[in-house]
């Protein structure tokens, strides 16, 4: 019997997710033993036509990381969906839009203008921008187009499972791969991580008081942090209460608050809204002036509460922006 086929692919991502697969260390050998890797651009050489030539559904699973923000990525996502039995959104960007999703605060024009003209480190007197089609020595290279809106994978194709995290931890990855190979998969559409918020497994849980009320918000570099005490109890925004657990509180153990990369629990439609609702309800001043003084401590609310989830949130994108 031939080994099951697995594909890895990356779209708009930083490469960290690829790194995690390697982080499986010797366990990767176990995986390689059990499967045939039919596509892994970061490590091996495959061509588009190789994938195109495969029969539909011939790949057991594609683990796709990165958000979808160009026509090429969209095309690859659709192609791999067709070729795979399971499409797995791997990592926060494929799951929720991730960091690239923050671009949804701006228009495409805004982004291109800044990056090719206005950026402080930019020297581009001719204001040259990448062209979709160019002529070069008789060749006609083509570039994929950026879409107006960055999307999570499931906003483009049907997704069977999600492996959360920025990046997913080796433990979470191992659990997902094992579930896949042993055919012990949870119901379709599941996020393969515990469905309870991070506080549950946080080593600082016991130090959170029951009567928390915020007089100010600080960022971790603005004060000397007590390494034992709940970040929220110290006035630092921690996304833990609204973020799925499973990472074993990795950031918190490293002395930084949770930034929310595992996304919301299955019961929450919008992670950012939920944590805002929770924190704001517990702001001590009740008058407008006092409240606005407290929230001054959060200079970038989108970047704080929607760091990974903007594309998938109810806010989703700049008003009235079409996808393409």
């Amino acid at each position, binding site marked *: 019997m031939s080994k099951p086929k697995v594909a890895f692919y990356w779209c708009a991502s930083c490469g960290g997710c690829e790194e995690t697969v390697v982080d499986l260390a010797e366990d990767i050998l176990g995986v390689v033993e059990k499967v045939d890797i039919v596509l892994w651009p970061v490590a091996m050489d495959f061509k588009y036509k190789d994938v195109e030539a495969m029969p539909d559904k011939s790949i057991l699973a594609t683990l796709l990381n990165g958000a979808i923000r160009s026509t090429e990525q969209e095309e690859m996502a659709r192609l791999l969906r067709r070729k795979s039995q399971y499409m797995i959104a791997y990592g926060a960007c494929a799951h929720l839009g991730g960091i690239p999703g923050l671009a949804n605060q701006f228009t495409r024009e805004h982004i291109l203008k800044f990056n090719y003209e206005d950026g402080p480190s930019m020297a581009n007197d001719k204001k040259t921008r990448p062209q979709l089609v160019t002529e070069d020595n008789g060749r006609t290279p083509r570039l994929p187009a950026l879409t107006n809106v960055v999307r999570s994978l499931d906003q483009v194709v049907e997704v069977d499972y999600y492996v959360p995290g920025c990046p997913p931890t080796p433990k979470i990855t191992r659990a997902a791969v094992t579930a896949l190979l042993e055919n012990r998969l949870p119901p379709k559409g599941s996020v393969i991580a515990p469905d309870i918020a991070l506080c549950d497994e946080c080593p600082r849980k016991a130090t*959170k008081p029951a009567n928390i009320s915020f007089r100010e918000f600080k960022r971790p570099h603005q004060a000397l942090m007590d390494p034992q005490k709940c970040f929220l109890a110290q006035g630092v925004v921690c996304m833990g209460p609204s973020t799925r657990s499973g990472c074993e509180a990795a950031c918190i153990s490293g002395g930084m608050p949770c930034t929310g990369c595992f996304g919301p629990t299955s019961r929450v439609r919008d992670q950012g809204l939920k944590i805002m609702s929770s924190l704001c309800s517990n702001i001590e001043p009740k008058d407008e002036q006092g409240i606005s003084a407290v929230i001054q401590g959060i200079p970038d609310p989108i970047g704080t509460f929607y760091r990974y989830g903007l594309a998938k949130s109810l806010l989703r994108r700049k008003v009235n922006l079409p996808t393409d």
Partner: protein
Amino acid sequence: MNIMETRKNEPVRIGFYVCHCGVNIAHMVDVEAVAKYVATLPNVVVSRNYKYMCSDPGQEMIQKDIREQRLNRVVVAACSPLLHEHTFRGATEAGGLNPFYFQMVNIREHNSWVHTDRLEATRKAMALARAAIQRVPHHKPLEVKKVPINPDVLIVGGGIAGIHAAITMANAGKKVYLVEKEPSIGGHMAMFDKTFPTLDCAMCVLSPKMATVGSHPNITLWTYSEVVKVDGYVGNFKVTVRRKPRYIIEDLCTGCQECVANCVYKEPKFPDAFNLGLGKRKPVYMPFAQAIPSIAIIDPEVCLNFKRGKNPDGSYTVSDKCKKLCVVACGDRKAIDFSQKAEDKEITVGTIIMATGFKTFDPRRTPYYGYGVYPNVYTALELERVINASGPTEGHLVMRNGKEPKRVAIVHCVGSRDENTNRWCSRVCCLYSLKLAHLILEHTDAEVYNFYIDMRTPGKSMEEFYNRVAEEGMHLVRGRVADVYPDPNDTASGRLIVQAEDTLTNRILKIPVDMVVLSVGLEPRPEAEDLRRLFNLSCSSEGWFLERHPKLAPVSTFTDGIFLAGCCQGPKDIPDSVAQAGAAAAEAFSLIDKGYVEQEPNTAFVLAEECSGCKSCIPLCPYTAISFNEETKKAFINEALCKGCGTCVAACPSGSIVQNLFEDQEIFSEIDGVLAPLPQ
């Protein structure tokens, strides 16, 4: 199978009914078009319009359809759920369904009454109806729980309204706690001389009722006390009452006042609050002759046996510097206790009646009338004391300079019907001004001028009273007084000029008078806002406690089990205050006599498996229904305390608190429905 349950996987079958409400809805909403549109929506089996859905035939129509069309969901588009949700839930239940398979759409208060474009209003009604149609399939059968009710009642405020409510409840055999802030009950009424329109002596009417309160076996009277904490819910309020120290042991004081007579101060020296500072009292005093309870009180601010000034915690330190002749006079009764401290009493009651009254407008806010500047400008309440036989002048109408006024001006609507102060009519000022004019004429030979904007005398026997006193020889000038200033030709006597335009003759009048009486309006008490928070009430924009519905629930509040009586709800005269107090008592009584309260099942609950124990919800609950279970490290909601406000549900950062009738799926479906495109 329970008839109330809908079988799982049974297809949803919705009956939709849109009400004309006579023409209330139908004149602005094309109800037929709405019914026709809804008939096209998924799961809708029946879609009808009817003139009065709340009528018996309307309700029977629903029941018949449930039975014959095998409906398992019901949606009615009509008035506010506040009015008829109960009615239609009842009809749904009578038809054999769980009442919570019903959903109401408000297309009257939220639509026909507030819009002027029939086409747009109709489209809005369609969108709102669609929201309900998409929501109702997610409804689940819920159960109304019954919670026993504590039969004891708390009445806050010992004015005439509180007194009447207390006696009514106590006579019916209920145990009443009457809490009054001042050292004696009686309120404003105890300060009045006579009452309109009958001109009977206020104290003659009031003092027997005060005495009844004082001696009634079912009434626990706590004066000089304030409510400091309210927890719990209808049927089971836990209330903390702080009893301020009066330095007299209530059980031991006989009211003989020998302590007062023997105080080291031979003469009264300190302004007497009951007489609005027009008279004097000693550091130990009886608030007034007929005070109930008839117990003296010591003012630690001025008593020589205390150090001057309050401690930071509000208490006073005994100096022991006085000869304490009062203690000697008290003798074996041993009623004086300088070491008395504030004491908190915790009680449990099932119902609460708020009768916290009003304050009179402070005329310093209308400086052009010279109150506080010219000694001969009085408020109406001050005149009540001056003219009262037990007042500081023993009923002789003399001014601060000891002279009897020859000419008196009464200025109506001070702090009422005025853009710059209070916009409302205080309802009693015209009549009490006429009464005061009558009393001045009775006591003196003075000329009396009443300056009024409009003479408002509604109510039984009031117009007759006006006609009667108007014929007694007073001057009635229709015009708002613009200015009161000293007579430039006679600066020595304190004579004042009252300037006003007589709007009937179009002349500017400048009338010299000796005394000006300002008919000050009624205002919410300054502590009303604190009380509102404490008791979780709503206030109108003016600051009066808000009744649940002006016509259908005029003494109820939005907090179940708390009722309103008297002027805390708005200005009113004594007969109306007493009537309202009776109504509040009846409402409280009907609740108590039923024996239990039905609890709306729209409560929240924690998904125990899913809760991460982050504690975000714990401090938010206004009903302190949420606690943290130290064993399981999870939050827990006491269903009996939950009022379904939804605060914790919104704030739970991991979506692990769910509220019945407001589940996410229900709300998102509703939003999808209201935003769905409508046919052109």
